[in-house]
């Protein structure tokens, strides 16, 4: 039962990442420029330089590819540890570029946050996925498992 919930979590997070990636791929005008250029908080010095011309194109491409990669493999239940790990990295960057720390202005948010926001929660959910691979319950890894099971039975 517990694992079924984690499967559900994996599907939803994969869904979210893939949709974000697809939307950006089909919108050539999209760019992380303003998100990065307006970065705030103690680590903003890491993000603002990424908004420079020449660099921002690479950042945009890498961001979209990672989103799509995480989305596809979490949905398929394959390489899910790598996908969850990449998702953690991406979410950590989103979180620290605009952290919900007291005293910082919260831009384009619909709720109220104090240290904890949805990026952080999704990040922790990705840690759960990283620690609990479920591709063998629902996902392509199921075939491997079944294969092994059958082999075992045949041996017996």
């Amino acid at each position: 039962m517990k694992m079924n919930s984690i499967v559900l979590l994996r599907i939803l997070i994969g869904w979210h990442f893939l949709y974000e990636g697809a939307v950006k791929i089909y919108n050539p005008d999209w760019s992380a420029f303003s998100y990065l250029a307006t970065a705030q908080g103690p680590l903003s010095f890491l993000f603002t330089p990424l908004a420079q011309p020449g660099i921002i194109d690479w950042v945009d491409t890498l961001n979209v590819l990672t989103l799509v990669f995480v989305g596809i493999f979490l949905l398929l239940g394959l390489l899910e540890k790598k996908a969850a790990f990449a998702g953690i990295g991406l979410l950590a960057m989103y979180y620290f570029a605009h952290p919900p720390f007291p005293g910082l202005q919260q831009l384009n948010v619909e709720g109220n946050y104090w240290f904890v926001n949805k990026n952080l929660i999704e990040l922790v959910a990705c840690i759960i996925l990283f620690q609990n691979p479920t591709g063998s319950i629902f996902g392509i890894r199921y075939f491997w498992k079944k294969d092994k099971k059958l082999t075992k039975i045949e041996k017996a």
Partner: protein
Amino acid sequence: MKWTRRDLLKGLGGLPILGAVWWAGAANTVGARRERNELLEKLNISPSLPNNLPEITGKPVRVGIIGFGIRGEQLCRSLGFATNEWIEAMELEAVENPDNTALKVYRNQAKLNVKLTGVCDIFDVRAEKALNSFATPDNQIKRYRTHLDMVNSGEIDAVIIATPDHWHAPMAIDALNNNVSVYVEKPMTHTVEETYRLQEAAKNSKATFAVGHQHRQTLSFKTAQDVVEKGTLGHVSLIQTNTNRNDDNGAWNYDIHENANENTIDWEMFLGSAPKVPFNKNHFFRWRKWWAYGSGLSGDLLTHDYDRLNCVLNMGIPKSIMASGGVYTHNDGRDVPDVLQANMEFPDFSTGSSQIKGKEKGMTFCYSATLGNGFNRPTILMGHDATLELGNNLTVWPDNSSTRYAESLELGKMKPNIPIFKYTPGSNAKMPDAVSSATSQYFADKGLMWTYIDGVRVDSTFLHLKEWLSVIKNGGNVSCGIKEGFEEAITAHMTGLSWKLGRRIEWDKEQQIIKPIEGINFDEVLLSNGQWTKTSPRLGS
């Protein structure tokens, strides 16, 4: 090994979800973009590119600056001459606040083919400041005691006039009569009578005349012209434009220099045609607060807003103006109002109509100002079909009851709260730019300070001066010349007169005069101290 349907569902169940999510992302985005592109195609608005000016080649234009105060210094910087003091101050600023790009913008500014050869300022400290910073071994800048010495010297091709208002026209006329080109700050003139004399002088002179409304170079305004020309807004019936400032600098209470005294300032020269009053530092540094030298909100800030819109709409001088207001926020001895509302009527003007012929005609231009509150009220043009917000950025919202967009609104392709057009030329630059003071933020928001070309911030005053210099060298037309300056000055004077007299002031288009009022001498009223009564004293009397 045999796969059951259950196995396939468990192993490949993610695949249809993947397909569905991808399809949804693609369909929603592509659909929204297609609708957007169709809309933009229909609106057919094209952000115009900056004027391609011919190069200013050959011998450098020999420029003299008259008035090296706050604005004079700014103009010299735009010309490529920053004082040592300013550079030092900006270097410090940049260390404290890395977002302050003022010095970087200055250093990246293209070099203009000019030679600053003369300076004329009646305050020794300022004149010496200019000489100390700009004089070089091969260009010993000359200090002229009077503007006449300068324009008669034969060593100056063009002058920049950044003096108190009451000196604008006399200096500009003297320069033009000597075929010396003129760039004069706004308002172009201080009285009605000299407005006509300056018009004559500009027409008869071989030299180039320009008024310092630098926002005519702002790209968003050029785009706004296109927005209006394409009928995007429908019939504009009301324009609302505002001044909202709430700081000492914005209320013209500038610093008084410690070395200012009767020995360092040529007081008689400062007074010029103004009433003879004893030496007064307050008057010298804060001259904008008295009608004798300045013209308050109507000449100082309304002129910017009026010309901004005249640049977009080309609506000319209003048929009538009614103004009201008073000294409500800075009761410090000033006699110009610090709260002012001016309603200008344009009964015959139209930006076009999407409704039946003859239904819509006429427009009111409402200028509203206070120096006691800094809440940002944007400039908006209110049309039957859409609303335009105008500043450095430009945004168009469709109107809920628009005739032109009725179908799109009904189909949900347009929504009244979602802009149909947005022009943000600075969006490629690192935002937000740091600006130094509340007053400069005020000008920046209005698109009066800089513009963006290919995402790079460019000082619009630089572009305006460059255009003037190019016309001096290569011929052509300046974007704010005597016609535009005349319209701006008359509008400012009509507003001042309306406030002072407490009555409607009308413009006679055929005769090109302000309709006379029996028993009233307009210039006497304009120069009088505060609001007019039969026994209104002039300053100092």
